């Protein structure tokens, strides 16, 4: 049977990683294609980060944002977690024939407003219109460039290092899933969609040497990010269930749908791995910013289960947090 693309190939899990390795990087060159959120490059003595991301979401307006805010913030955040100061982004639109002008203008207004708040400029773009049915209303691609003043990636992660998350987890994923499933009880769920460059800068400026790793846990959530960093290594990730910041509304919807918030998408959070001695100070800096008010140390690096991430539950039992293959789906009962 001929192999076809399945939804799982785009979900940030194992299937997608395999496809990137065996189909994409093999052709473009594993040395060229960097797997981080952005590629870090040098030109004429200047180090910069370059990234691109395509956004598609149903519905394209949701509580807490829309596809436009996502498109700007996603790219700003992918640059920021590499330690870059985002400067310029592009905006490419794929529009389905028949799309409402009013919706388009609203989305573009969101993009402009987010870009202003994030201090980035939208400097180039493209538009394509495809026939009815050839796209799901609107797709947006944004690419971005940022200057790296201080590099923070690729430092060795060691046992004892602490894991920090900048706020409540799963807000975006569950807000969107609740609307998609018409959950009448989903009142109060709001996406956390936000640009994090100012918050991240505040941390990097104070603790340039302490941070070993930083990433925004979007698709696949916090658990997927943590799995990636220990994969194939002698270290493991240990999370404390009691320490995880999860909104009650998010927890409620997760329980009903059988979804683990650790795997639900975030659009305004960052996971930081840091030297243990500075963890509390970093949390305090995060808490002093608007986006990081609910930041917390959620776990640590150890050597208990090499290559794995696991969680110690509220009752003191342990369970593995595997690298999932694809997005979680709501269950039957």
């Amino acid at each position, binding site marked *: 049977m001929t192999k*076809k*693309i*399945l*939804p*799982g190939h785009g979900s940030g899990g*194992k*299937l997608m990683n395999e496809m990137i390795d065996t189909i994409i990087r093999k052709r473009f060159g594993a040395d060229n294609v960097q797997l981080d959120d952005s590629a870090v490059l040098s030109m004429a003595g200047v180090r910069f980060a370059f990234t691109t991301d395509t956004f598609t979401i149903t519905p394209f307006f949701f509580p807490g944002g829309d596809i436009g805010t996502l498109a700007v913030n996603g790219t700003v955040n992918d640059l920021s977690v590499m330690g870059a100061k985002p400067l310029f982004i592009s905006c490419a639109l794929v529009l389905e024939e028949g799309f409402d002008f009013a919706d388009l203008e609203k989305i573009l207004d969101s993009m402009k407003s987010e870009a202003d708040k994030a201090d980035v400029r939208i400097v180039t773009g493209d538009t394509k219109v495809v026939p009815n049915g050839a796209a799901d209303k609107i797709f947006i691609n944004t690419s971005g460039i940022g200057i790296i003043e201080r590099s923070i990636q690729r430092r060795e992660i060691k046992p004892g290092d602490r894991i920090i998350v900048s706020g409540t987890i799963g807000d975006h994923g569950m807000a969107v899933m609740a609307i998609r*499933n*018409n*959950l009448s009880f989903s009142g109060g769920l709001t996406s956390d969609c936000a640009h994090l460059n100012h918050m991240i800068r505040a941390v990097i400026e104070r603790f340039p040497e302490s941070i070993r790793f930083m990433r925004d846990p979007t698709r696949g959530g916090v658990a997927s990010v943590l799995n990636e960093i220990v994969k194939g290594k002698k270290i493991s990730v240990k999370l404390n*269930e009691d320490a995880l910041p999860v909104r009650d509304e998010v927890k409620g919807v997760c329980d009903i*749908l*059988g979804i*683990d918030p650790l795997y639900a998408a975030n659009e305004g959070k960052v996971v930081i791995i840091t030297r243990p001695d500075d963890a509390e100070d970093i949390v305090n800096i995060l808490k002093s910013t608007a986006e990081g008010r609910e930041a917390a140390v959620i776990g640590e690096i150890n050597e208990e*289960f090499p*290559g*794995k991430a696991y*969680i*110690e*539950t*509220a*009752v*003191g*039992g*342990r*369970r*593995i947090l*595997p690298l*999932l*293959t*694809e997005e*979680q*789906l*709501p*269950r*039957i*009962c």
Partner: protein
Amino acid sequence: MGNDLNKKLAERLKGLRLNREIRIMEVCGTHTTEFFRTGVKDLFPRNLILVDGPGCPVCVTPNEYLDRAIEIGKQYRPIIATFGDMIKVPSSTSSLVKEKAKGMDIRIVYSPMNALEFAEANPGAEVMFLSVGFETTAPAEAATVLEAKRRNIKNFSILPGNKLTPPAVEALLVAGEVKIDGFILPGHVSAVIGTVAWRFISGRYGKPCVVAGFDASDLMMGMLTLVDLIQKNKNITVNQYSRVVREEGNRTAVELLYQVFTASDSRWRGIGVIPGSGLAIRNEYADFDAAQKFPVTPPAPEEAKGCRCGELLRGLITPPQCGLYGKACTPEEPVGPCMVSMEGPCAAYYKYWSGR
């Protein structure tokens, strides 16, 4: 408060000293995953064994059901509405997700009512809902059929695949293949059918039972109580989920269920046909029965080679004892349904226990 209680229960569970191996079957798929997810299973002493029962609706649905759904999809091209965890389950030669990639119109819904509303909004299309699930989902499915009739929606039907849990547990007890000392009974199912529906286990078969809820304290209290009953040879059924479950259950839901459905013989994966364990649509609602509305003759079902889901669902093996587990059968490329559904024992082991 809750935390203090949990810590005490955890200490008691960790401190249990059993003078022999005790084997407990958890009937419900949600219990299977929750024992892992809450970490409670990690607290068990070595000789306290949890045997996974036939309590995951996706897992016990036989190939012939999906074969029929796919054959209907091919011949009559209805929009197929289904719960999310059905779409990756392998049929004899395909799966819904593979058919979707080839162009079959398959939609994931959260409730049967979503499917009905979709049918009402799209009168030009036929909508077939895959009605799979135990006593917990069947009342909602019955209510949807009643609503379809009331609103006179003719382009909606359900493919009945619902099952009743007590006959399956009785079938395992009658077969006597697996040694079980007691049962943790499903909280949600019992909320519908009541504790009364389970009394035969302690009465006729002399096995103690506990109806348990799903959070960590429910699971720990349930296990501690059941172990105590087993050790003291007290063959009774204890309802430890009385905040939700009543002795007689939810009569309204049960009446609703039997207004639309009637008990019928039904095939369970790995167990075979169990008398009175399925739900067929009553004649008055035959217009909403997709099996009658879209007659097809699917090819004879084939079971995947080497797949031991059947033995697993009878409590005879644990997932790692299957030769395919984690090798040829993974959540990416599941061979058997127990690796697909998030309530399937293989998926639960793979997800929460891998590398342990």
